[in-house]
């Protein structure tokens, strides 16, 4: 059940109606818990059972470790939680990746390893809900938050359907306090949520899904396409992945808001970033802050005697972030490239700090370089293997002219036009102006934009890219 499916609209209409008709907070939480498991079970009921077991175990581990002062016992509980969550993730997501990598390594030493062949189905959203659960037990272990006393509350936090399958990754310290009292929502919040849902729908359905056939065409047969078509396809993928994922996040935040809950902002115009650090402050914010807090800082962060150690921490963190996205070396390389770019940028800034006079043009150049680096790095993210990635990267750098096949020329302008649109929407506070419309005008415009959005809907099933992670 995707947010863009008719089935979801029916499901959510029923959920909203029943939810707001319930008076007590307890009844509402029970109902959301039930709805969340129904939502998750609509993919595969077996994994709903797994989610329930994992969540119940993490709740118990956190409760136990908060009740004991014995440091050794506390470590055992948090290690058990880490092992369980990472074990599930490793098995479902990385089993074949580790096995095939080990076999390839053995082959290079003329050794032949044979391993079991298992037919593993990846539970949807496993990377998201395991990370969310991990942050809970680690936070309790670090004594940063108290444990959640109620099993029902914890299960609801761990399975909250708006963000269960593709984030934003919610921190317990942010979400759990919201559960303590019955949620309310006013007219302004409803308008904002409806606006955000439609915006997300437009990004996902009207933009990302319409562009994806062109991207697929070129990435599936890169050798036959011209250099310009390849560059255009990379730009289109840059738009597609942003609109796909940020569209989903917008809809998730809006759905939660209509239930009275606030989720964290996950994207903040990342392609307007003026450095690679800035990009990661704007792209998939809930993941980047997660890996910062639980990997980078755990490794020692930037408080080191030697700069090289900080850079090492940065690289390891980004490599892990890359691997989180997918079980393939291309994802690891993507994370590594982003890590390396951050190291280079930090060192450059250190060696050549900008003077106030240089600031504006350095900012402009930095934005251009950052955007093009991000575009090129997406090649690694999208390409099915390194040979395709190398070919596409050569085309991007005009080192290879490519074949004869083309895609429509006008598609090359879609990226720049959308970027200018986004900049203007922020500059002229489009959202604020839309939300300040009187209710009748807002409703009239809202219906009209939906009519356009439905016309722009390409027909065919195109799941969210981040669902595979």
């Amino acid at each position, binding site marked *: 059940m995707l947010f863009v499916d008719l089935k979801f609209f029916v499901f959510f209409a029923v959920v909203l109606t029943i939810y*707001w008709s319930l008076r007590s907070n307890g009844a509402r939480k029970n109902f959301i818990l039930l709805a969340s498991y129904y939502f998750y079970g609509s993919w595969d009921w077996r994994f709903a059972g797994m989610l329930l077991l994992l969540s119940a175990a993490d709740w118990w581990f956190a409760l136990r470790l908060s009740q004991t002062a014995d440091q050794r016992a506390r470590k055992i509980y948090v290690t058990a939680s880490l092992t369980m969550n990472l074990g599930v993730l490793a098995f479902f997501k990385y089993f074949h990746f580790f096995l095939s990598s080990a076999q390839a390594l053995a082959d290079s030493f003329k050794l032949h390893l044979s391993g079991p062949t298992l037919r593993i189905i990846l539970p949807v959203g496993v990377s998201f809900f395991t990370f969310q659960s991990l942050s809970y037990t680690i936070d309790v272990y670090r004594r940063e938050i108290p444990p959640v006393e109620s099993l029902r509350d914890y299960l609801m936090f761990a399975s909250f359907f708006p963000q269960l399958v593709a984030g934003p990754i919610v921190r317990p310290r942010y979400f759990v306090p919201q559960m303590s009292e019955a949620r*309310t*929502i*006013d*007219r*302004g*919040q*409803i308008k904002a949520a409806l606006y955000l849902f439609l915006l997300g729908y437009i990004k996902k359905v*009207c933009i990302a899904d*319409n562009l994806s*056939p*062109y991207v697929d065409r070129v990435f599936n047969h890169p050798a036959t396409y011209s250099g310009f078509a390849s560059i255009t396809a990379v730009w289109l993928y840059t738009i597609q992945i942003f609109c796909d994922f940020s569209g989903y996040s917008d809809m998730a935040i809006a759905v939660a808001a209509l239930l*009275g809950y606030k989720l964290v902002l996950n994207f903040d115009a990342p392609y307007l970033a003026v450095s690679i650090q800035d990009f990661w402050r704007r792209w998939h914010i809930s993941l980047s802050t997660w890996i910062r807090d639980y990997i980078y800082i755990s490794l020692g962060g930037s408080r080191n005697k030697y700069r090289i150690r900080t850079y090492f921490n940065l690289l390891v963190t980004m490599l892990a972030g890359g691997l989180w996205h997918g079980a393939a070396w291309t994802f690891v390389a993507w994370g590594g490239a982003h890590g390396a770019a951050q190291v280079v940028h930090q060192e450059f800034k250190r060696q050549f700090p900008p003077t106030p006079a240089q600031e504006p043009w350095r900012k402009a150049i930095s934005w251009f370089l950052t955007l093009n680096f991000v575009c090129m790095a997406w090649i690694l993210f999208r390409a099915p293997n390194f040979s395709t990635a190398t070919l596409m990267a050569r085309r991007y750098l005009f080192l290879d002219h490519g074949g004869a096949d083309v895609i429509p020329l006008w598609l090359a302008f879609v990226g720049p036009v959308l970027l200018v649109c986004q900049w203007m929407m922020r500059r002229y506070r489009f959202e604020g102006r839309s939300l300040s419309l009187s*209710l*009748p005008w*807002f*409703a*009239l*415009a*809202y*219906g*009209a*934009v*939906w*009519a*356009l959005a*439905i*016309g*722009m*809907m*390409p*027909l065919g099933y195109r799941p969210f890219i981040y669902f595979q992670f």
Partner: protein
Amino acid sequence: MPNSAGPFRKGEFVKAGFLATAGFVLCAAAIHGALGDPFRLYASLRSEQLEVMDRLQGSSFSSAFGSSHVHNGFDPATFDRGMAGTPAQSSTENMAIPGGSQVEQRATALEYLRSLHAPHASPNGPKSCMVLLELGAGANIGTMFMVHPRTINLYDWHGVRLVSELTDSQLGRRRNMGRVVFAAAGSAMYYMNVGMVSNRIFKPDVDEETVKSLLANDRRGAELMSSDPRNQASLKRVFDSAPKVSQPVPTELEPGNYALVDELRAASPVHPLAFVYVQMPMMADMESYPVYPDHLQSAGGPVPIINLARPDVHPELYQLQYWHDDAHLNDHGAELATAIAANELKSWYAAHGWPSACKE
């Protein structure tokens, strides 16, 4: 519903809903008007067939319409050879579409008629203009095409009306109702322009390979398939298990069958336009087969009904070597069935009178 600062009042909620609906309807109507006829928007299989139609324009004066049974089972070249030397001699093409339906054959035939011209008079050239319609095609497109441009770009209110006129007493009330609901849902999507703007902006290319194969070897839109060895065992089982005598099922014509002929005749730029209804054979006929009247009496005259689904009359068709699968003839079967159809039609015209040469 909500209950804090600036809450919604019930009346306000209803008013907002009404205005949002009004905004939606107004914008959808404006888009629908701006888009023009959505039938030509890309829909896989149909667009390829329409491309074939465009390429044959000027050289074809008759066409067969319907579903895959006609698409695979009617060979235009064989038909023309069969009708050669008669007053109904023509140059025919096959515009049937796999998965097609009565609603789709109506729209495709109307599209065909839009660009139809009468043939130039010549002693040995084509003389008549003919439309062959499939009698047994389903009322609606298959449900796998429910949320698909094949359906959405097709179901204007005329389509819904046609489906409502194709009530089949043998289907029962519930299934007939289901047909109309399907058509109404298709029509709602049609007027909501679902996917149409995207289809126009990001227009997919017609599959050139398919078009080429439909035009190769003088096929003129037909897809003539050879026997599939993988189907042979299951086909043999069907033949072996078939009863010795098949049961005839008297079948009534439906108001929609009449309405379709009348509508197409009214839309035709050439006159007279000859109509033929064809019932294609299927292996299920070996258990029971439909029995139709000899012709349908439309407002413009009688329309012959060529019923090939008669194992009692055409036992030669029900031989293993003529079938691709249990519902479709192979290339040899298509050739034989088309030749039989041409012969039956000639006999019918000989008894009831030949159509005169068509003119604009």
